[in-house]
């Protein structure tokens, strides 16, 4: 017997492969045929020939089998669609819950990703954007760091002339808001810049008239489409003239407004030739330099070039550098990185925050996960409803593979429908969301060829992922146990399902906690006592241009009834301070202080407390050569009695309470106040701060403007409100707070939706149990308790998991801020209670409904 068998041994592997591809209905016969032929061949030729022939046969057949299953599949598709829709209609409520959850989840995901995409897309519309870099400077002088985008005017020129690896280099300088003549009146136009002729080589501006604008000649200008329409009501304005208060400029080009994802926006660019910028040497900073490198030149090359330049020009002309840790260097910033990661002094606009953008992506992902978990849970829980259907199908000859595919198909269809619904939602919500995030966001289906396929692919992917587990679970149900009515086996507690619910609620609780803490911190930022009063203060900018008339200006302004106090200073809170190293009495080394130059009314205008000595005063002429320190400085010096001690020979006449000059992101620096300095280097009054009565903005502005116009000799009036200016430092935190607020609530909602579905099922299956309990005398409360006990345990578990994780992450985030709230236990408790309560409510409602059912009816149900 054995011998015969070994002679007729047939290799198994080829047949396994055949089985994989061939259709069930004829596999048996086909394999039989092949066996026959194989043995035939083996007896006539060698074993090897037969074996190779066998493989050849099978491999040749595979394309045909694939072709067959595809064509059969296509025919089945329509049939399956019908079945899917029929199923969805039969279980309306649950289908609705699934669709809602998935749609909301997808909508959130899409909205957030639109924002994330926008953040990542800044400045990418410039040609060769990867080769464009901004050059910034950093250095240290007198012991403190200085890092800024301001570079000297000659840098770009030097690079262009002497270094061929730089294809082009340009400078930009923002002037701010200037008045221009319009219809006999003067109107203010903001975002006025100076630029040179290479601006259009480095950056890609969409010129409307396709001429190469020069900006070489003095008194030439290019304007944006918006500006052209504003001034001329026309866009064909090349060679026309616009007038400032003291100059006439010829328009040499009109460009399309820069898109919103640009780290700088401009309306007018005036040629550098118009002003005498050439006279500025290497130490005069203030211009922003951008370069475009030749293809193939790396950032490293540019950096070494910059090192060369610094040594050659900057160090050579400045004896202070290179000694005592004083240094200066230039470094490069890739253009596309600027928006996400650059936060230097003198940025054009407040930039975004790369870390936050990543957080948003995580939030989007979480919400999607919650929605998918819902689908998985509901589908598997639904099994009791589908069990009969599955049982019958199996008995009639359906196999696991088919059923599995059917369920995956169902879930794909559900996801496709959800994607469609979410498109409607996205389009509806996008305007509001755009406003929330302070930028225009839109979704174009036909602009990029891949938008629609990606959406569809996305739906299919989610469908497959969510559908896998339910498909396997459902197709494995044993028809015998189901049809024999043995419900118990199907009812077994699903560990996985419970884990998923816990995961959902953990995520929701985590997001809830995050939301509360972020919003608390934001509140703290906006309301914390800063040591000065930032409300109702009008700032007039560029008052240094008034020169000697600054005092007259301040005096006249302070006479107005709505104005409480006026003061001039070098810098206003929210801006950056210069630093200076001073030698304290009896010390060996200099200490670096931040320097604020201000006049004698500064304390009154900003409501700053003097804790020792006095503030600068008119009465003492000697105040002009003395200084005031803040509490932090005093601590640093370690002097109990600082009054009359000296720093580099200058006496201290007063100590003020610390105030947060920069945002609460940073610690208060040890600061000195001066009222006079050599060459006004620290005490030039660049800004005048005007404290006005509550509610008198309009008349205050009007009066100040008139006063300004009378004295300024044509320099345009430029103003801001201090509180707005100061708060722009927190715009990123505001963004993330808004996002979290909205999406945390949504995530709880979706998770609750899932819970709702789950409880409905559980309760339906327990109808008999409830009926019996009622008959035995249980009250509604008892029933509610028994039914909800299990779920509530899950929610508590979710909290236990979420709290420590949330604590860790939020602490981490808060450590980025010098001034932060303490994470109090109350927050966790509140978040937990809220989610718990919400879930409990849902479970209660369902349980009460089930508990109120007439036991007769439920016991009759068999």
């Amino acid at each position: 017997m054995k011998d015969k068998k070994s002679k007729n041994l047939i290799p198994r592997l080829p047949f396994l492969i055949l089985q994989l591809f061939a259709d069930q209905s004829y596999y048996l016969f086909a394999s039989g045929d092949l066996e026959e032929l194989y043995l035939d061949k083996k007896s006539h030729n060698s074993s090897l020939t037969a074996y190779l022939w066998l493989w050849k046969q099978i491999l040749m057949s595979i394309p045909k089998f694939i072709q067959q299953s595809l064509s059969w599949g296509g025919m089945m598709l329509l049939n399956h669609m019908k079945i899917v829709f029929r199923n969805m209609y039969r279980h309306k409520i649950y289908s609705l819950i699934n669709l809602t959850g998935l749609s909301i989840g997808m909508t959130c995901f899409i909205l957030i990703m639109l924002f994330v995409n926008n953040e990542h897309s800044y400045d990418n519309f410039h040609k060769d954007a990867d080769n464009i870099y901004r050059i910034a400077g950093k250095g240290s002088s007198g012991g403190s760091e200085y890092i800024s985008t301001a570079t000297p005017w000659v840098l770009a020129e030097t690079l262009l002339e002497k270094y061929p690896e730089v294809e082009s280099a340009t400078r930009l300088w923002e002037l701010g808001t200037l008045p221009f003549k319009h219809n006999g009146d003067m109107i203010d136009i903001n975002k006025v810049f100076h630029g040179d002729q290479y601006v259009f080589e480095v950056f890609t501006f969409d010129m409307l008239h396709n001429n190469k604008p020069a900006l070489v000649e003095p008194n030439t200008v290019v304007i944006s489409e918006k500006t052209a329409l504003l001034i001329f009501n026309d866009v064909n304005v090349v060679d026309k003239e616009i007038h400032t208060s003291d100059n006439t400029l010829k328009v040499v080009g009109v460009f399309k407004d820069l898109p919103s994802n640009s780290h700088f926006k401009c309306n007018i660019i005036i040629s550098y030739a118009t002003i005498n910028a050439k006279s500025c040497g290497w130490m005069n900073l203030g211009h922003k330099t951008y370069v475009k490198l030749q293809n193939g030149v790396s950032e490293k090359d540019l950096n070494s070039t910059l090192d060369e330049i610094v040594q050659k020009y900057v160090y050579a002309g400045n004896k202070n550098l290179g000694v005592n840790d004083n240094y200066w260097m230039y470094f490069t910033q890739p253009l596309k990185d600027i928006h996400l990661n650059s936060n230097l002094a003198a940025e054009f606009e407040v930039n975004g925050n790369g870390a936050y953008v990543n957080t948003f992506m995580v939030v989007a992902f979480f919400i999607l996960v919650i929605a998918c978990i819902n689908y998985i849970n509901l589908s598997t829980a639904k099994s009791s409803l589908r069990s009969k259907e599955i049982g019958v199908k199996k008995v009639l000859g359906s196999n696991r593979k088919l059923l599995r595919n059917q369920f995956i198909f169902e879930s794909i269809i559900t996801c496709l429908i959800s994607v469609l619904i979410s498109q409607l939602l996205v389009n509806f919500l996008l305007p509001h969301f755009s406003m929330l995030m302070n930028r225009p966001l839109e979704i174009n289906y036909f602009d990029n060829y891949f938008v629609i396929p990606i959406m569809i692919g996305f739906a299919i992917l989610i469908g497959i992922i969510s559908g896998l587990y339910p498909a396997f679970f459902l197709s494995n149900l044993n028809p015998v146990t189901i049809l024999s009515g043995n419900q118990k086996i199907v009812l077994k507690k699903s560990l996985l399902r419970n884990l998923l619910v816990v995961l959902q609620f953990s995520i929701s609780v985590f997001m809830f906690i995050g939301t509360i803490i972020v919003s608390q911190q934001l509140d703290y930022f906006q309301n914390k006592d800063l040591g000065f009063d930032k409300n109702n203060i009008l700032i007039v900018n560029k008052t240094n241009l008034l020169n000697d008339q600054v005092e007259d200006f301040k005096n006249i302004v302070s006479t107005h009834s709505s104005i409480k106090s006026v003061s001039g200073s070098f810098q206003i809170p929210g801006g950056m301070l210069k630093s200076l190293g001073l030698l304290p009495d009896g010390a060996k080394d200099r200490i670096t202080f931040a320097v604020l130059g201000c006049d004698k009314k500064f304390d009154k205008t900003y409501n700053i407390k003097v804790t020792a000595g006095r503030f600068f005063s008119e009465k003492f002429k000697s105040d002009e050569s003395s200084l005031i320190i803040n509490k932090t400085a005093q601590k640093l010096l370690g002097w109990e009695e600082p009054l009359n001690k000296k720093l580099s020979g200058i006496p201290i006449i007063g100590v003020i309470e610390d105030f947060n000059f920069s945002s609460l992101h940073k610690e208060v620096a040890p600061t000195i106040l001066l009222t006079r300095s050599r060459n006004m280097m620290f005490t030039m009054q660049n800004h005048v701060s005007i404290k006005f009565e509550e509610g008198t903005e309009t008349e205050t502005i009007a009066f100040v403007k008139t006063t300004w116009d009378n004295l300024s000799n044509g320099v345009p009036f430029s103003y801001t409100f201090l509180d707005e200016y100061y708060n722009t430092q927190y715009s990123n935190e505001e963004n993330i707070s808004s996002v979290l607020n909205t999406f945390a609530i949504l995530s709880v909602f979706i998770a609750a939706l899932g819970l709702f579905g789950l409880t409905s099922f559980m309760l339906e299956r327990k109808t008999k149990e409830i009926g019996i309990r009622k008959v035995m005398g249980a009250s509604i409360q008892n029933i509610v308790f028994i039914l909800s006990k299990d779920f509530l345990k899950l929610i508590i578990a979710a909290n236990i998991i979420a709290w420590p994780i949330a604590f860790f992450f939020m602490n981490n985030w808060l450590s980025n801020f010098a001034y932060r709230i303490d994470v109090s236990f109350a927050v966790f408790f509140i978040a937990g209670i809220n989610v718990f309560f919400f879930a409990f409510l849902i479970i209660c409602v369902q349980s009460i409904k089930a508990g109120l059912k007439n036991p007769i009816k439920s016991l009759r149900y068999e």
Partner: protein
Amino acid sequence: MIQLTKPEELLLLAICNLKDEAYGVEILKFVSEKTGYEWSIGSIYVPLDKLAAKGLVEPYLGEATQKRGGKKKRYYKITKTGLDALLNSKKIHDDMWANIKNISI
């Protein structure tokens, strides 16, 4: 009238030729010999499956043999519909060839 594809036509002809011996192995051998290249098992069964679905052939089971590891044979018999389609195909064929007695380019 159902139009047959060439492979389908060849398979039907094979079945007619083989009469009672029309099962996988024999069909494969027959068409491979007649057309001159070796057909794969897939290119036999897949079209036959389609033909069966359309009702042009009727599969029936034969006895199991030791040679096939105990598996049964599946025989194919041509149905009336199949025969009609085959004859129709032949008619079209003959019509088209009718006026091309001595073909040359």
